[in-house]
């Protein structure tokens, strides 16, 4: 049974068709979704995480079918079962590195606050726990974002263009960090990017236009 199953998904904004198609993701699998900017990759992640609702089709994570969930249930689903890494990492500037990670624990109604500091320490940020994002380097911010995505031990991590605005070398190190952390945590990774260069070691790469197409 696949971890993630997307079937006959359709989402359009007015007359613009954004996402249309089906695909599956196995447990622990690392899949890259590539396509040009504006083709709907981020929208797909928003649909999978329940931030947006599809016009048609179904999305299932394990035994849970998202399209039938209430908004409150979707919030709980997102907090517990999805790790999200945004473009530019999007840390909350008013919170420290540790608090940025702990906040995710709170929403999942988890009690494992110690996991937040443990993860950050594992990522070499033991002396940066109480630093604000503006006091961190780009690399340190990346690691905080990854820790925040993994702290609730979700089965699926969604990464939305985490390499945007980074040079090739730094993009490769971010992707490697993500892959390594997800592998350790046993989480599947679905990463969307328009940068093909950084995605060579993924289990699968899916081409994305208005339909999903397995890349050669």
């Amino acid at each position, binding site marked *: 049974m696949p971890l993630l199953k997307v079937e006959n998904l359709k989402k359009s904004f007015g007359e613009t068709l954004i996402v249309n198609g089906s695909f599956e993701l196995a447990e622990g699998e690392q899949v890259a979704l590539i396509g040009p900017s504006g083709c709907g990759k*981020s*929208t797909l992640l*928003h649909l999978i*995480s329940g*931030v*947006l609702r599809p016009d048609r089709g179904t999305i299932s994570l394990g035994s849970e079918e998202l399209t039938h969930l209430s*908004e*409150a249930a979707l*919030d*709980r*689903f*997102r*907090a*517990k079962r999805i790790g*999200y890494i*945004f*473009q*530019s990492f*999007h840390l*909350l*500037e*008013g*919170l420290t590195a*540790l*608090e940025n990670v*702990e*906040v*995710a*624990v*709170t*929403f*999942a109604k988890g009690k494992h*606050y110690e996991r937040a500091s443990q993860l950050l320490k594992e990522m070499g940020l033991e002396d940066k726990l109480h630093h604000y994002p503006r006091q961190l380097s780009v690399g340190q911010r990346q690691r905080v974002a990854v820790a*925040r995505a993994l702290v609730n031990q979700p089965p699926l991590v969604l990464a*939305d263009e985490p390499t945007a605005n980074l040079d090739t070398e730094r993009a490769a190190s971010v992707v490697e960090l993500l892959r390594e952390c997800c592998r350790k945590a046993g989480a599947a990774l679905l990463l969307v990017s328009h940068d093909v260069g950084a995605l060579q070691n993924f289990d699968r790469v899916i081409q994305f236009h208005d339909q999903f197409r397995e890349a050669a």
Partner: protein
Amino acid sequence: MKSGSLLHLAVRSLLQHRLANAVTVLAAALAVGLAFTVFAVNAQAKAAFIGGGGGYDAVLGARGSALQLVLNAVFHLETSPGNIPWSLYEAVSERPGVERAVPLAVGDNYKGFRLVGTTEDFFKDPPSGAPEFQLREQGRFFDPNYREAVVGSFAARETDLTLGAEFQPYHGLAYDESAQHSEQYVVVGVLEPTNTPLDKVVFIPIEGIFRMGGHVLRGGGEDFVPQSGESIPEEHREVSAVLLDLSNPQMGFTLSQQVNRQGKVATLAFPIGRVVGEVFEKLGWAHRILGLVAGLVMFIAASSIVACLIQALSSRERDFAILRALGMPRTRLLWLLVLESSLLAFLGSLGGFLVYGLALWGASSVIRNQTGVVLDIFSFHPVFLWGPTLMVGLSAVAGLLPALRAYSSPVAGQLKG
């Protein structure tokens, strides 16, 4: 405070925009402080004036306004409405039911502080509820046979009159340097502060007022100028007012009926508290308007809190979207904004106490200097409870506006870029 709790997130958000929020808190503090000041100063001034009879129940004086009589004889403000014959004082003091009758005579001042001529009984046999007269150092009360004075604490401080100091009074109740009397008085006692209008008075024997140069007595209907070394016949003596301590309220009503309804030469102001209370009742409209203004200012402060939050919304939409994407329920986001709004109002209310303290300190100095009445800065007033509650409540309700905007704001669009 647990990370991610609403309170934690609200506090962190307020700290993140601390400058704008500090200005907003200041506005709320001024609004709450204004409300505190309007209501508490009014209540305290009212209590101080109504209860400021100095233990006496009534004032007997010349025919005219009871309020003017009380202000002149008890609060030592205003001019005297005129004099009454000494015989009236003697008659009333002998009435059964009149426990104490103390005559007062006014008409002179020392550097703007009025001289009050009275008897030793004023100090030595005060009624219950009168301030405790304590003298500084080795002072004593005056001897009615000499030109001696006992000075109230505030008057002593302002005029530099100390024990043993000599001074020459000035004619009239207003200070006029050119109207100095030739009589020389010596200070034999300086009173400890009583926190009453008496602190602004220079007391001398009543005989001293009678005999002050240029004074003419008309107690008998004819002009009489006292001569040095000769006693003053009682029929010529007159007093400005008589303070009365009555055995029971019924006595006051009886006396009031006889003096005010049946008599034509005098006025009895009874009870003193009610006479002063009428002033506050007449000025009630002004207090209500001030209360309305205070309420309006609180509303404006609540609006400025909301304006501040709305202004910050656009820069915070991404933060809200991140929180939502991390699983924060939409309703919690709504309550977060309401909590922030309430917190700003709460902090403003705390600041309001500081503003109130400063305002009351200023107001009490002015009122004390003008009237001798002291306001108690720490005296409780219900506005200290309902003021902050109203401010926080108003802000919480008003905070729903930005909260609902954040609540309905789409998440996906803010997560890009």
